[in-house]
C-alpha cells in the first residue's frame, strides 16, 4: 500500500464498490472507504478497517440465515402437532425440525456469535484504539476472513442440500451433498457417527472456521503486545482491549482442541477409526469432554468481548471514569482462566463420576464471582453519573439486566441436584439465550451503534434507534423469559412436538420471536438508511477519550491524519472534551493536560 496522498484524490471510477461507497456518499472525502476503488480493492485489502467491514457483511448474512431458521423453529412450535408442513407425514416434520435446530445452532454459534464482536468491531477498532496503523499481521487478518468465508461455504452447502432434500422428499443423499444436518450444534457421538446427514462437511466447516478464529486471536495478542503507542502501558489499555485480549487467549487455547475433536470425528466418519464409537470399543463420553473443553470456554469467547463493549459504553454514557478499572481488567483474565476448568457442568448426566460432578459444580459456581465483579463495577460507574440514554446505552443497560438474569440462572444449572431436573429442558434454552442473545447480541448491538459513526462516518437516526432497541428488548424477553417457566415445569428441549399443556408457553414464546425479528429488521433498516442518507458524523459524537475518537469519522486509510502521532491517553478521562453544538460533537480542549482523577 502506498502512503496516503495529502491531497484528497477525486473519485473517478464509476461506483463499483461493494459496500455502499457509491460516488456521492462521501463526496470528495478521502477516507478508508473511498481509498481504493473496485471490488478487488476490497477482496485483496489488508486494511483492518475494510476487513472489519467485510466481516460485518458476512457475519450479518450468517445472522440472517440463522434467524430464518429460528423463526421456522418457533413457528413449528406455535401449536402442538405438525405446523410447518401440515400436508406432509408427521415424520417429515419431525426430521425437518431436527435439521432446523441443528443448522440454527451451528450457524449462530460458529458463524455469528463467535466472530461477531471480535471480527467486526475488534478488527475495526482494536488497532485504532492502540493508535496503530494496522494489526500486527495484516495479511493473516485477510486470510482469517477467507477462512471464515471458506468455512461458511461448507454450511451453505449443507443447507442447500437440506433445502433440496426437503423440497423433493429425498432421503439418503450422498455425503458430499447431504440432506442438512441433524445432530444439534454439539455433534454428539455416537449419533453423529451414524446419521447420514452432513456431519463430514460440518466438521470440515467448523475446522476451517476455527482457523479464522485462531488467526484473529494470534493477531490481536501480538498487536496488543507489540503495537501499543508511547504512553500506553497496560494500565491505560481500554477495557475493550483487555477483554479482547482475554478472548484471544481463550481462542488460542481452546479452539485447537475443537480442531482436533473435529479431525477425530472426521476420521471416525471417513476412516471409521471408532475412537468415539462405543460399538467399536470407543468412548463417547471422551467426545463430550473434548467438545465441552472447547465449547465452554467458547461461551466466554462470546461473552467477554461484549463485556468489553459494555465497559466502554457504560463509562462514556455516564460521563464518568470507569469504576474499578483494574478489577474489570483482571476479572476478564480470571473468567478466561476459570472458563477452562468448568466444562464438566455440561456432563452432569453423562455418567461421569460423582466426585467429578461435585468438583465441576463447585468450580462452575466460582465463575459467577468475576462475572458479578463486572456487574457491580458497571453499576458503581453509573452511580452519580450524568447518564445519557442514547441507543448504545440502552443496549448496555439491557445487557446488564439480561446478563444478570442469564448468569443467575446458570447457578441452578450448576447445582447438581437442580440440574438433574433442568438438564435438557427449556430452562437451559432460556439460560443460554439470555447469555448469548440477551447479553452477547445486546453487547454487539451496543457496540455497533457506538462505533457506527466511526465506521461509516454517518450518524444513525437516534429516535428510531431507541424505538427499535426497546422493541428488541421487549421481543427478547417475551420470547425467552417464559421458557424458564416452561422448563421448570419440565418441557424438554429439542422436540418438535409437545404435550398440549405447554401450549401457551410456546405460543407466547413464538409471538415474542416475531416481535424480536421485527425489531432486528428495524435495526438493520436504521443502519442501512443512515449509511445511505444519514448526517455526517463528527469525529467524536460521544465525548469518549479512547484513541479512535481522536481521528476523523470515518478514519483515513492510515487511521490517523498525517503527522498525528497518537500517544496513550487515560481512556476514561472525559475532562478534555467540550461539546460544540455546531459540530454536534465533542472537540478537544486546547492545551488540555490530564490532572489525574
Amino acid at each position, binding site marked *: 500500500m502506498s502512503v496516503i496522498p495529502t491531497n484528497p484524490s477525486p473519485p473517478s471510477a464509476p461506483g463499483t464498490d461493494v459496500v455502499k461507497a457509491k460516488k456521492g456518499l462521501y463526496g470528495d472525502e478521502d477516507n478508508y472507504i473511498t481509498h481504493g476503488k473496485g471490488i478487488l480493492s476490497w477482496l485483496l485489502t489488508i486494511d483492518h478497517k475494510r476487513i472489519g467491514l467485510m466481516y460485518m457483511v458476512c457475519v450479518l448474512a450468517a445472522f440472517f440465515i440463522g434467524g430464518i431458521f429460528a423463526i421456522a423453529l418457533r413457528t413449528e412450535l406455535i401449536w402442538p402437532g405438525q405446523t410447518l408442513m401440515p400436508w406432509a407425514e408427521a415424520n417429515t416434520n419431525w426430521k425437518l425440525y431436527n435439521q432446523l435446530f441443528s443448522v440454527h445452532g451451528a450457524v449462530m454459534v460458529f458463524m455469528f456469535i463467535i466472530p461477531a464482536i471480535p471480527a467486526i468491531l475488534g478488527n475495526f477498532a482494536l488497532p485504532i484504539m492502540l493508535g496503530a496503523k494496522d494489526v*500486527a499481521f495484516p495479511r493473516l487478518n485477510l486470510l482469517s476472513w477467507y477462512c471464515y468465508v471458506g468455512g461458511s461455504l461448507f454450511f451453505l452447502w449443507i443447507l442447500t442440500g437440506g433445502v433440496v432434500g426437503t423440497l423433493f422428499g429425498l432421503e439418503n443423499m450422498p455425503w458430499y451433498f447431504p440432506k442438512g444436518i441433524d445432530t444439534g450444534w454439539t455433534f454428539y457421538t455416537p449419533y453423529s457417527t451414524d446419521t447420514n446427514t452432513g456431519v463430514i462437511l460440518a466438521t470440515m466447516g467448523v475446522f476451517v472456521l476455527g482457523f479464522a478464529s485462531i488467526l484473529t486471536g494470534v493477531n490481536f495478542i501480538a498487536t496488543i503486545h*507489540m503495537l501499543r503507542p508511547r504512553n500506553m502501558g497496560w494500565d491505560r489499555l481500554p477495557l475493550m482491549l483487555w477483554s479482547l485480549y482475554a478472548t484471544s487467549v481463550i481462542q488460542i487455547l481452546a479452539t485447537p*482442541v475443537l*480442531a*482436533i475433536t473435529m479431525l477425530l470425528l472426521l*476420521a471416525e466418519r471417513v*476412516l471409521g477409526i*471408532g475412537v468415539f464409537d462405543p460399538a467399536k470399543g470407543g468412548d463417547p463420553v471422551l467426545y463430550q469432554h473434548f467438545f465441552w473443553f472447547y465449547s465452554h470456554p467458547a461461551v466466554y469467547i462470546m461473552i467477554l468481548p461484549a463485556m468489553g463493549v459494555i465497559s466502554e459504553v457504560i463509562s462514556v454514557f455516564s460521563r464518568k471514569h470507569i469504576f474499578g478499572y483494574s478489577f474489570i481488567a483482571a476479572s476478564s483474565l480470571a473468567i478466561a482462566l476459570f472458563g477452562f476448568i468448568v466444562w464438566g457442568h455440561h456432563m452432569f448426566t453423562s455418567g461421569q463420576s460423582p466426585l467429578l460432578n461435585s468438583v465441576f459444580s463447585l468450580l462452575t459456581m466460582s465463575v459467577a464471582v468475576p462475572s458479578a465483579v463486572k456487574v457491580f463495577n458497571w453499576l458503581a460507574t453509573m452511580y452519580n453519573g450524568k447518564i445519557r440514554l442514547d441507543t448504545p446505552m440502552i443496549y448496555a443497560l439491557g445487557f446488564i439486566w439480561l446478563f444478570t438474569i442469564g448468569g443467575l440462572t446458570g447457578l441452578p444449572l450448576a447445582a447438581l441436584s437442580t440440574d438433574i431436573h433442568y438438564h435438557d429442558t427449556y430452562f437451559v434454552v432460556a439460560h443460554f439465550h439470555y447469555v448469548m442473545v440477551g447479553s452477547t447480541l445486546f453487547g454487539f448491538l451496543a457496540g455497533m451503534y457506538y462505533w457506527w459513526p466511526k465506521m461509516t462516518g454517518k450518524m444513525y437516526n437516534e429516535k428510531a434507534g431507541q424505538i427499535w432497541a426497546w422493541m428488541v428488548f421487549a421481543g427478547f424477553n417475551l420470547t425467552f423469559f417464559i421458557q424458564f417457566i416452561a422448563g421448570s415445569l419440565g418441557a424438554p428441549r429439542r422436540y418438535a412436538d409437545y404435550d398440549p399443556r405447554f401450549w401457551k408457553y410456546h405460543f407466547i414464546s413464538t409471538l415474542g420471536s416475531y416481535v424480536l425479528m421485527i425489531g432486528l429488521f428495524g435495526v438493520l433498516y436504521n443502519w442501512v438508511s443512515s449509511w445511505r442518507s444519514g448526517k455526517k458524523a463528527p469525529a467524536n459524537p460521544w465525548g469518549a477519550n479512547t484513541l479512535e475518537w481522536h481521528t476523523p469519522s470515518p478514519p483515513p486509510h492510515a487511521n490517523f491524519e498525517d503527522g498525528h502521532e497518537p500517544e496513550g491517553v487515560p481512556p476514561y478521562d472525559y475532562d478534555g472534551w467540550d461539546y460544540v453544538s455546531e459540530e454536534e460533537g465533542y472537540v478537544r480542549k486546547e492545551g488540555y493536560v490530564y490532572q489525574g482523577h
Partner: protein
Amino acid sequence: MSTAHSDHDHPAHLAHHFETSAQQMESGKLGMWVFLATEILMFGGLFCAYAVYRANNPDVFLFAHRALDTTWGAINTAVLLASSFTMAWGVRAAQLGQKKLLIGLLIATLFGGAGFMLIKTVEYKAKWDHALFVGPSNAYYHDNGTLADPGEAAHSSEYIEKHGDTDGGHGGHGDDHGAGHGDAHAAGHGDSHAGDHGGDHGAQADAPAPAASKIAAPAAPPTGLHADLLTHKRPVLGAGESLSTGIGAIQASHKGSHYPAFTELDPLNTNRTHIFFQIYFAMTGLHGLHVLIGLGLISWICYRAGGPMTRALLVPGLFVSVGIYFVFVWWLVSANSGWFPTTALVAAVLCLIAGALWGAKNVALTKPNPDADSEFSPGYYTPVDCVGLYWHLVDLIWIFLFPLLYLIH
C-alpha cells in the same frame, strides 16, 4: 510486507505499520510462539485420548505397541533431531549473514525431513502388510463386539508377538521374556481349546477353528466378545486376577513376561486393541502432515534465501525428490497386487520428467542477477527464525510420540 515507502527511510522488508525492524521481528516471533501454543494444544487433545485409553486398557498398549518397529523409530528420532540441529544452525547462519551456509543447512534439513518421511513410509508399509492399518484395515477391527475377521487377527497377533521379540529396541530383555512368552502362548492355546472355544465362537461358524480359538481369553469367564461387555466400565476380571494395574500386577498376570499375548487380553481389551492402532495412526499421521508442511515451509525459506541458481533449481529439485520418493514407494510395494504399485510408478515417472525438464529450462534461462539475491540479512531473518521454531516443534512432538508409542513397558 515488502512495500516501498517514500516518506520514511524504511528498509524494504519493514511493513508500513511497524516502526522498527526490531519491533517487526519481535511481533513475528511472538505471533509464532502463540501459534505454536495452538499446535501443542491440538496435539494435546490426541495425547489426552491416548492417556485415557492407555489408563483404561494398559494391557492393550503393552500388547499392541510391539507391532511398532523400535529400531526404525529410534533411527527416525535421530534423523529428526539431526535436522533440528541443522535448522538451528541455519538460523544462526542467517543471523550472521552466511548466505551459502544457510542454504546448505536448509537443504540438509530438507533431507532430514524427507528421510523421516521415507522411514515412516517403510513403517506404515509394514503395518499395511500385516493388517495393522488404520480404520477397518486393521485385523482387530470390529463393530458390535465381534472381530470382523478372527483369522486375520490371529495372523497379526502372531506377527506382533514374534516381531516384538526380535525387534532391536527390546534386545536387552528379548531373550528372557521371549522364553516366558512362548510358554504363555502355548498355555493360552491349550486352555482356550479346552474350555471356552465352543461357547465363545460357536456363532462364527465360518471362522477357521484354530484361529478363532486364539481369540478366547483363557482367564476370562466364558462370555467372549459380546456387545453387552461394551457397557462395562472396567475390564472383566478372571478368577484370581486383581484389579491392580501396576506393572508388577500386569507382569504377574502375564506369566512372567513383560507383555501380554493377544490371547491373554480380557474381552473388553480385545475389543479395544484396534483403538491403539487408530490412535497411533492419528498421532503419527497428524505429525507426518506437520512434517510435510514443515518441508514446504523450509523450501519456501530456502527459495527466498537463495540466489538465482538456487531459485532456478529449487522447485524442479522438489519435483525430482518427490519422484524419487515415489520410485521408492513403488519398490516397496512392487510385490503387492492391485492398482497401487502402477500408480506409484506412473507418479514417479511423471514427477521425474517434469522436474528434469523444468530444471533444464530454468538453468538454461537463468542469468546471474545480483538483484535477485537472498532476501535475508542479519537485519531481517524473521521468517527463517519462525520456520525454525516450527520445525523444532515438529521435532519436539515426535520426541514425545516416540516413547509413548514405541517404548511402552
